[in-house]
Structure formats: C-alpha cells, structure tokens
C-alpha cells in the first residue's frame, strides 16, 4: 500500500512540474522510511526511538539546465512549493553539457522476499524482549562480562520513481538487525567483542545467540599482549572482509571515481590485481543480499555487475547512474542511490557479494603458522584512493595465531596497506557467507597485511 500511495504522489508531482514553462524532462522519486531502534549500553536500554519520514526528490530539466530539490514532506502544499523551487533553480542554472537525458524506461520486475510485514509490525515490547535476551545470554557466559551494549533496529524503506520518459517503478524493503558489543573485565584489563546479524525477517534474528557469541570472544580478549608492528598473515572474519570491500566499492567501483581518475581500476583495466580465487559482484537479486531493491534511485533496473572476475578488474567492474553513463555513451547499470539515502551522491554498489571458497574459519586458523585473527576493523579510511591504500584499526577481538591455534589476545593494531597488495595472495576463502549490510562476505585468509602502529588496549 505504501508504494501505491508513493507512486500516486510521484505522478501528481511530475504532472505539476511538466506544466511549467520551459520544462522538458522531469523525474520524481517519492519515499517513506519508518524506523524503530532500541539501543542499549551498560546492560540496559538507554535510547529507544521511532520515527517516520517521507518526502520527494524532484529533478527538473530545462534543456541541459537541471534543478534538484529534496523535501522531507509528503504534504500537498510543501510538494507544490518544492516543484516551484526546483523549476526556479533549473531556470537560473547554467547548462551541464555532460547531461544527456533522464533514463528511458526499461522493463523491470519486482523481487520476491524483499518485504515482510511481520518485520515492520514488530513492537517496542518485542524489541525490548530481544534486547533482554541478548544481555542475559552475554552475562550468563561469565562473571567477567561487565557490560553489554548494542542496538536492535527495524527499518522499512519504500520508494517510487517516475519520469517524463515513461519510467514508473517502485520497491519496498524491510530490514531487521541486531548488533551487540560485550565488554569483559578482569583485574586491570578489559576485553571487547561484537557480533551482528541482519535479516529481512525479524523472526530470524537470534538475539541470544548474538549475545552469547560476542560474550565468548570478549572473555577471551582480556589481558591482551602487545606484538611488534610489521607484516602478518591474517585470518579475517566476514565482518572485517566486508569493511574492506565496502570501501573498495565506494572508492574504486563507482563511475564517478573512475571517470575522475581516482579509482585504481582505471589504471589496471584487464589486469589481474587480486588473487585468482577472488570473485566479487553486485547483485540485488541474489538470495544472500540484504537491500533487495530491483531498481535504483532513477527507476532503472539494477544490473548484476562483475566487480572482480578471477582477480581481474575491467570496464565491466564499474557501476553507473544515467549521468555518468551518459558521459561515456553507455547505459546506466542502475546504481543511482535511492532517494531514501538523501541526495544523489555518486553511483555505487551496495549489494556486493564475494564468492565463497571451501574452507572453514577453523581450517584457516589451523593452516596458519604465525598470524592474526581479526574480528573487525574500526575507523577505516582511504589514505591514497587511486592506489587503494586504506588505514584503520583492529577492534573487538584480535588474536595471535601460533602453530594453527588462537593462543592469546593482542593489543589492537593499525593497518595501513594497499588492497592491491593485501588481496594479491588469498590462500583460503571461507565457505560460509555472512550478510553484513552492503556486503555479503566469507571469512578470508590473506598472506600478508601490513600493520604500522599499535594502540594501548
């Protein structure tokens, strides 16, 4: 019902805009986001919120002059005012010669299994009960568990897009997630770990399991020892792998960074830059991806993109919206960001899947003579995007591997390395995939990752 109403609002808005003098193309995306989130810290709920927001993003084209306006309201008067403002902006804006046209309509099909009503109907009491389960499960593991923090979130995201060339498309997704951090303490040392789970079905979320798993690792991470910086073999959890690929997606596979010369892909077309075992793609229709939107923010069907094929990148690795595609005379791949994320920004993949291998996490550890197991990376950021150099820190459970066993926790380390070097040799890939927001990833063993600093906890 939400999408039907949004489609109607979008169509009415488009008709209003087309009545204005000089306007020859119009695109309108109407959206609604309902969110509810229960957040806990120190083993009790401290923030508990719900909100409803909706609005329209309108693009008015007059020749090659473009006016954009986002209004966070679905009220008629606000929308009328927004149309008028967008037209005014278009009239005074100089032409953008790179703009070719809004996208033409293409056949699209909805994705089953994207929206589950029971997820959106989840009550504050239900969320509180799951939170209590996570907290109790963590504390029941050990007296060392001192505090449990995290959030339980429900979100329904709906949008409908129309344009004056005939696009008319809509989609709705509901997401449930839990994230739990457990803090343990012994004498003068604290241990940390975290676990998370995402699903479109709220009933799939196993809060107690997440709490229990986080507690187990947290207890093991107290009294960490410092190890020297340098290169180490590493076994990365799916969460850690997902962070690296999320950044690669943003800084390397977006047409904007590719066209601006800031993506490593531009300088390595057709080359095998990663291990031959690495295959990654962006596919909204895959069963294991979270945000199953069949269309993008312009109503263009999302195309499956082969980001990495047997370690190689190519022109086919790049994700386009209609604007960036128009600059190269191509078709959009359906990667304009949906209006629910605010303004357009750069096209980018957010249904990234890394193909699984055949090893378990335990086997990767067993095959490591001396290395590190990394649960999670923190505050990762690009240092030199065109060389895919990232920096960040380990967090929430970093362990030394000696002779095939996790032997002791280590003080968190800073890594600074080019992904072209770090992902060059991937001896083992995990057989199990984990859904982690934008990325679905297996665990991964890297032959080396360069650590350049050490912190104090």
């Amino acid at each position, binding site marked *: 019902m939400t999408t039907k109403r949004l489609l109607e609002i979008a169509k009415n808005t488009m008709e209003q805009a087309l009545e204005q003098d000089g306007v020859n193309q119009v695109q309108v995306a109407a959206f609604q986001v309902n*969110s509810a*989130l229960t*957040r*806990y*810290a120190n083993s*009790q*709920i*401290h*923030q*508990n*919120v*719900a*909100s*409803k*927001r*909706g609005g329209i993003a309108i693009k008015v084209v007059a020749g090659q002059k473009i006016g954009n*306006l986002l209004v*966070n*309201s679905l009220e008629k008067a*606000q929308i009328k005012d927004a149309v008028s*403002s*967008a037209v005014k*902006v278009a009239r*005074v*804006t*100089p032409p953008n*010669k790179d703009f070719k046209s809004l996208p033409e309509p293409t056949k699209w099909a909805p994705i089953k299994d994207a929206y589950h009503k029971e997820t959106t109907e989840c009550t*504050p*009491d239900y969320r*509180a009960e799951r*939170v*209590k389960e996570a*907290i109790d499960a963590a504390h029941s593991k050990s007296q060392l568990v001192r*505090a449990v*923090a995290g*959030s339980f979130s429900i979100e329904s995201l709906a949008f409908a897009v129309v344009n004056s060339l005939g696009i008319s498309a809509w989609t709705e997704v509901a997401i449930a997630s839990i*994230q739990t951090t457990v803090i343990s303490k012994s004498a003068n040392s604290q241990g940390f770990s*975290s676990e998370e789970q995402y699903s479109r079905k709220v009933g799939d979320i196993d809060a107690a399991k997440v709490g229990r798993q986080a507690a187990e690792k947290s207890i093991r991470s107290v009294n960490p020892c410092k190890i020297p910086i340098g290169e180490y073999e590493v076994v990365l959890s799916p969460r850690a792998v997902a962070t690296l690929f999320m950044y690669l997606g943003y800084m390397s596979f977006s047409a904007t960074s590719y066209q*601006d*010369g*800031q993506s490593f892909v531009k300088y390595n077309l057709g080359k095998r830059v990663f291990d031959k075992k690495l295959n990654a793609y962006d596919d909204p229709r895959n069963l294991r991806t979270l945000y199953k939107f069949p269309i993008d923010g312009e109503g263009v069907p999302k195309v499956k993109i082969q980001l990495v094929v047997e370690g190689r990148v190519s022109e086919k690795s790049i994700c386009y919206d209609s604007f960036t595609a128009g600059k190269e005379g191509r078709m959009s791949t359906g990667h304009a960001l949906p209006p629910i994320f605010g*303004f*357009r920004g750069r096209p980018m993949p957010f249904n990234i899947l890394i193909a699984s291998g055949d090893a378990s996490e335990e086997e990767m550890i067993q095959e490591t003579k001396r290395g590190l197991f990394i649960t999670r990376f*923190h*505050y*990762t*950021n690009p*240092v*030199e995007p065109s060389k895919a150099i990232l*920096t*960040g*820190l380990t*967090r929430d459970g970093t362990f030394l591997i000696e002779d095939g066993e996790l032997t002791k926790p280590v003080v*968190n380390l*800073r890594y600074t390395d080019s992904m072209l070097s770090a992902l060059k040799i991937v001896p083992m890939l995990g057989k199990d995939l984990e859904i982690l927001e934008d990325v679905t990833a297996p665990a991964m063993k890297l032959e080396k990752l360069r650590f*350049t*600093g050490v*912190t*104090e*906890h």
Partner: protein
Amino acid sequence: MKNGVPEEVHISRMKGFGLRVLAEGSWGFAASVDVTKSEVVKVARKAVTIARASAKVNKKPVSLRNLEAKKANYSTPVRKDPFKIPLDEKMGILMEAERIIAKQSPLIKVSYSFFRTKREKKLLMSTEGTEIHQQIIWCGGGLMAVAIKNGEVQRRSYPSSFRGNFSTSGYEFFESLKLTQEAKKVGQEALQLLGAERCPSATKDLIITGDQLALQIHESCGHPTELDRALGMEADYAGTSFLTPDKLDTFRYGSKKVNIVADATVPGGLGTFGYDDEGIPAKKIYLVKEGVFVGYQSSRETAALLGLKESSGGMRADSPLKLPLIRMTNINLLEGDWKAEELIEDTRDGILMQTNRSWSIDDRRLNFQFGAEIGWKVKRGSREGMVRNPTYTGITPQFWGSCDAISKDDWMMWGTPNCGKGVPGQVMYVGHGCGSARFKKTQVGLIK
C-alpha cells in the same frame, strides 16, 4: 559545481517534530514529519509506549540535573541572509574560481567548488516550562583541485578540505573567503604536488596549521571528552574513551601549553547557539587546563550519573526526527604566545603539514593517523621543498604532551559540518578554534 558547471544544485527542506518522554524512569522518543494534530497525538502515545518498553530492561531510573526553565529567543546574527542572495550570484563566484583553477594546467583533471548554507528554526518546549525559539544560520564554501599525471593523483583544497570552511554567519562569511583570489594558488599547489618528493618516514618535529589541527582536536580531544562515550553509551558504535572518569582533574592530557575549551558562545563558531536541545544556555567550559584533563562535555543525565554539578550544555539533535545526543559545540585550543612564522624559524629539522586528506583513530581515541594534502620540509628555520602524501601518527596524550609551541596570530574558527555520531547516525555541525602548533619528535610518513 564540478569542472566549472553545476553538477547538482540542491535545496533540501525538512519540517517535523520529536517527543522525548520520561516514563517509569526510562526514555522513549518518537518523531514524524507529518505535522498534524492527529499525528502529534499518535506520536506522543508511541513515545510513552516506547518508554514503558525501555523500563522493562532498565536497572536504574533516569535521573536528571536540575534545569532553570526559560522562555527565550536566540537568532544567529547575520548581516546578509544567504537565502536572499540570488543563486546565479553564488554560482558566478564558483564558476569564476573554477575557471581560474582549470587555467593553470591541463593536468588539473577535476575541480570542485562549493557553497552551502543552512537555516534551522527550532522550538523547544518541555513540561518543565521551557519555551525556547531559535534560528541558527550557517554558511560557507570552498574549492578543490585534483591534478593527475601517470596515475599519481594529488589534490589541494581551500580554505579547508571537505568542502571548505563554514560559520554561523550570513553570506558575508562566504564573501570573506575570497575564493576567486585563492583559486590560482589552489591549482598551482595541486600541480606542484605531482612533482614533489614523497614525505619521508622518520621522527621529526611536526608543525600543523589550523585547518589540520582542527581535525586533530576534533578526533583526539572532542570525542574522548564526550561523557556518554566515557560512560560506555557509545560502546557499540564509535567506541569508548581513554579519558575514563577516574582520570578527571588528575590525568596529564598534554603539555602545560595545552588549554582546550568547549565554547558554544564564540561568535561565528559553527557550534555556536543560544541554548542546547535540553534548554541549557550556551556556555564555555574547560576540557583541558594547562595540560590536565579537567572537564567533560555532558548532558543533564550524564552529569547526574557522574555527580557533576550541571550539564555542559552540548545536547543537540541533527533533525526533529532524532534524539538529542552530547555533541561538540566549538572545541577550541586556546592561543599560545608564538607567531605562526616563529614556529618555522625555531624548527631545526621538521615537517610542516596543512589541510586534512585522511583520518583514522581507534575506538578509545588513542592511536591516530592523519594524512595531509600538502607538506614542506623545515630545515634550519625555513621551508625547504614541498612533500606529497604527508602523514603522521601518534598516541593522543603523548602527542599532546609533545606540544611545545602554539601560535596566536593565525588563530581562527574552523567549521566542520559533518561530524557523525550515534545509532541511528546523526551528522552535526561543530566548530574548532585554533592556529598552528608544533609537536616534538613525531612519527611522520607511512611506516615501512
């Protein structure tokens, strides 16, 4: 604008309301953009239902520091309303600046220019009797040039990276940036960086100019002095803080030269306002005094939890749909007694770094690594040769402990409109006042 043409011209509007309620000793919050009587009633009921659900997993009822309820008005003083300036005038300045950048060389492959302004009208009312009307206006902008040669990518920004500098002021602030006058230098420095040598990996005296030091203050003092972090309330996301409550008033955070305040009253600061979102009047408090950690940024609830006398007045929400959180106001490093040029003249073997390019800090705000857009070697009291991709790294209290000189003559306010915090995420506008400073024996360059 990008490459001299408007890639996108955006106007964004939001109207809405949020209700924070305390019921059975627990918090509930609900909000909506649908501002109608029936929706207000519905949302109020939802907030109470949520608070009651919270109470089921609550060990201790919420306690708040007292508030003297006020009826008040506050408005950012502006000389020229940025919303009344014609769009083509603003775009004209940006286009001219980018034309000058592009003219410098065909190696400049991309240029950007930005103008951004925001007007926020807020009404805060509470059952304690608060009724505060505020209008906050801020604006600003900036430039960036990207030069590329043989796969080497270098960029240069003005007056600061990430879209420029911003101030709670009118259009006169944007005019004062004089973007067209600075554009040539921006383009030329981007080009010069292509031929500059790589920053050495070594231990050297480091001089940081204000536009980079602002982010250093933000990450290594601003966030760790947020009391909600120190009390574990952000443990699941951004992390906790090395500045734990047992360190208050005793821990040596930096050298005796280091004085840092949270000051919501400083004119033009991006974090300047009349009242916070709990109704606390804007104030100035010390976080670090003569190098000692002496204060937290707090709320009424966290102040009560720690037994502090009162809130520091930093609770803010980024929209009516979000819960107020402890947010930085203007976190300022107070002036020292040096002139900026004297920092260079007094340095025998150092590196000078300017304008942030990358940043990362651990979840307790100890180990950090920053990259700058541009650097220069400093030898025997003068700049000698530009270096590209300069970075530095350190541990927060050791780093600030090595601060031996702070300037006074280049002190100014820097505005950061994109500080992220909280779950669900919020983006807040905050300010940092500082000039240049020197840090002895710092690790610079990427460690091999």
